[in-house]
């Protein structure tokens, strides 16, 4: 009974904390927008879910399936970032130390976190479900609401994925290496390479184990119906993503997935797998009894004699110095001095191998063929410092230095430019290989785009950090831009000249304007923070 009560209170407190966050609201808005765009106008010149350039009539089954597709795609990534802070918050607020002294077991604690993660995500799924009803009525093609056709995709496909995401968030937070910013990057690769790409159902006896996202459950059924209705025997092409069209898509009538017990069991298996992941998390979780601070690497420390730390000698003496004897000071602000310390603050604590990999990227950018650098190595080069940039704008809040920094002179006029310049310099230095390559190849348009890219990244980091008050937003957004956009050669995302044709199409100018807008947003956001 006591355990159940503890569990209930962990779930409740955690849920309230998350549901009142800005990120929760942003995720809901993004989910609604995605749901809206995944059900295009009946005469739209773009398609999202297509079978041989056909789409289903907008009945409950089709709308339910496509909104679920958009929801699980978005929430499996952004939802992870949203909920991956439950244990970290307990650690930062030191509530964890109180929890550590209570009788609740590690599994009980982590299970509570899993449940609250799941509830947060399930509420967003519920909102997406309500949006799907609205979309069917808005698109007005078949307005008969078949509640089960709409609901079952949410229950059987979306919720099991959310359970898995909720459990993975707990596992990542419980694992020392994955608990920080590196976890977001590792998860992103898991999401982009496994969740998005792996879409196969495996038959295991009476169990049809679908992929985690389960999108192929819909596609298989849609293709079968399409073949039947259109008498197609040859290969059928399916497509998803936003695809431009010459004319509106033709339609066929899809009545939804036949939810056999095998498919249902295959989906529910992911809930069981999610619970197993929580169990695994309990095995690796170290609790709150250890101080999880790590000695940082100082690049130049190898040239210095190691100083012995020594314990605190207390404040029993002031070395014969009296406060009256302190020397006077005169203020003489130097922007370069502040910039130097901003750079220092960003780079301090980076491991030696971080610098080594950054140098390897620079060398690779210089030595490899330009096409490869443009499409692959260049973007990767600017993913590498992602955790440095993501602290911009949010550092004062994260380390609670806000009151000290903001009560200093001209925090807006001095510190914001210095922080931005430091981020810009890091972009220039880490991307110098790509820049020089473009210069050597005589591609001045590309060089200009690269330079704009170097300005865009710190501006995005600063604006998102200040407005969303977390470093995760920038990390997710940059990873999506790079891996979903730039590396897939989607020109609209090309902020850094990764496509040779981008300068001609004016992309650098567009991103220059976006950069200015982001900087303005950062300044306005910081001003708001200063005038509380």
């Amino acid at each position: 009974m006591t355990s159940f009560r503890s569990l209930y209170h962990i779930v409740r407190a955690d849920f309230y904390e998350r549901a009142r966050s800005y990120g929760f609201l942003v995720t809901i808005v993004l989910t609604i927008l995605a749901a809206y765009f995944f059900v295009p106008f009946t005469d739209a010149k773009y398609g999202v879910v297509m079978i041989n350039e056909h789409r289903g009539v907008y009945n409950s089954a089709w709308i339910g399936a496509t909104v679920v597709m958009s929801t699980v795609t978005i929430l499996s990534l952004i939802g992870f970032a949203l909920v991956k802070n439950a244990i970290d918050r307990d650690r930062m607020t030191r509530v964890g130390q109180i929890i550590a002294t209570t009788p609740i077991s590690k599994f009980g604690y982590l299970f509570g976190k899993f449940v609250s993660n799941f509830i947060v995500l399930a509420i967003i799924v519920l909102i997406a479900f309500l949006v799907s009803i609205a979309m069917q009525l808005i698109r007005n093609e078949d307005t008969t609401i078949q509640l089960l056709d709409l609901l079952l995709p949410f229950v059987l496909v979306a919720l099991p994925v959310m359970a898995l995401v909720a459990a993975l968030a707990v596992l990542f937070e419980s694992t020392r290496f994955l608990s920080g910013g590196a976890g977001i990057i590792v998860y992103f690769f898991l999401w982009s390479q496994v969740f998005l790409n792996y879409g196969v159902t495996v038959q295991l006896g009476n169990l049809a184990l679908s992929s985690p996202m389960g999108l192929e459950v819909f596609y298989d059924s849609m293709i079968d119906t399409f073949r039947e209705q259109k008498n197609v025997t040859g290969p059928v092409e399916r497509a998803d993503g936003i695809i431009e069209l010459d004319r509106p898509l033709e339609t066929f009538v899809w009545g939804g997935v036949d939810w056999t017990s095998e498919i249902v069991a295959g989906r529910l298996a992911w809930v069981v797998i999610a619970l197993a992941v929580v169990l695994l998390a309990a095995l690796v979780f170290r609790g709150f009894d250890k101080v999880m601070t790590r000695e940082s690497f100082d690049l130049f420390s190898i040239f210095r004699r190691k100083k012995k730390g020594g314990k605190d000698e207390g404040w029993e003496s002031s070395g014969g110095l009296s406060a009256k004897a302190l020397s006077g000071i005169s203020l003489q602000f130097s922007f370069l001095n502040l910039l130097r310390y901003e750079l220092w603050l960003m780079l301090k604590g980076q491991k030696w191998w971080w610098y080594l990999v950054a140098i390897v990227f620079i060398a690779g950018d210089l030595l490899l063929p330009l096409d490869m650098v443009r499409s692959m190595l260049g973007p990767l080069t600017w993913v590498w410092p992602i955790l440095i940039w993501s602290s911009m704008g949010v550092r004062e809040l994260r380390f609670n230095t806000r009151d000290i920094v903001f009560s200093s002179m001209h925090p807006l006029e001095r510190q914001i430019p210095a922080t931005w310049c430091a981020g810009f310099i890091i972009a220039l230095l880490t991307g110098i290989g790509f820049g020089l390559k473009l210069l050597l190849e005589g591609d001045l348009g590309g060089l200009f785009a690269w330079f704009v890219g170097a300005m865009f990244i710190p501006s995005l980091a600063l604006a998102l950090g200040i407005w969303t008050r977390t470093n995760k937003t920038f990390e997710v957004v940059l990873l999506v831009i790079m891996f979903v956009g730039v590396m897939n050669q989607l020109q609209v995302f090309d902020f850094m000249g990764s496509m040779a044709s981008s300068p001609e199409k004016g992309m650098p100018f567009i991103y220059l304007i976006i950069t200015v807008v982001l900087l303005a947003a950062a300044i306005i956001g910081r001003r708001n923070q200063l005038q509380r």
Partner: protein
Amino acid sequence: MELAINQVSKQYKGNFWALKDFNLQLRPGVLGLLGENGAGKSTLMRIISTITDPTSGTVQWNGEDISKKPNELRRVLGYLPQDFGVYPNLNAVEFLEYIAAIKGISKRTAKKRIDELLQLVNLTHARKRAIGGFSGGMRQRVGIAQALLNDPQILIVDEPTVGLDPIERVRFRNLLSDLSGERIIIFSTHIVSDVEATAGSIAIISKGKLMHHSDPDALLQTVEGKVWEVIVSDQDVQAMRKQWIISGTIRSSKGLQVRIVSDMKPAPDARLTTPAMEDAYLYCISDSRGGSRND
């Protein structure tokens, strides 16, 4: 050099007033700002430190409204917040150098000043250690050092002795005394003995309102002839707590010696005693707490 707090009020969400029509004029010296937890001390400190704007009223530094010209005050401000963090990867010197750069202190000046301040707070031996591994007391001393970096004319220290051990507390009080002179120091605390040892004037705040402002002697005068001692049994104490302001109890062989602050004699065998600062403080805030002086 004058800091004037005029009719300052601060309202938070839920129609909660942390400060209400607060007035105070400050000149060089140490002001002890006394108040219980949640009295509004930190809100006042944050308003004076230009971190929070008041809902109404003004704070003027040498005649200039700090909401309109915050940098005039920030130039000469040293602020030790009640709850502050550090960048854990930096060592003490690096952290102070960073804050010095933000405050606009040149590199050369900062280096000398930081060496002196680290000596003053006895952290020279730990100057190259990452602050992330510092104890609470050491971290607090780094906070004190950063507040003194720009040789402030106005020094605001919010609950600075929390986290310090008794020796460190004494050191800190001495430091404040040394620093007083041609600067305004506002020392916010709920520990009466801290204020008693350092402050030239004392302001008592309760539920967002200024209850009293005077020098320590005048504050003590408010309870002259109103502090009583009486010996009672354990059972009687609980009943007395409901009826009187009890500022202390000492167990003796005869029973419990209870110290009562009251306008009238609380018991036939009660006898007057010399008032202490704690008595005056409890007396001043008793009205706002709904307590009884039985006058």
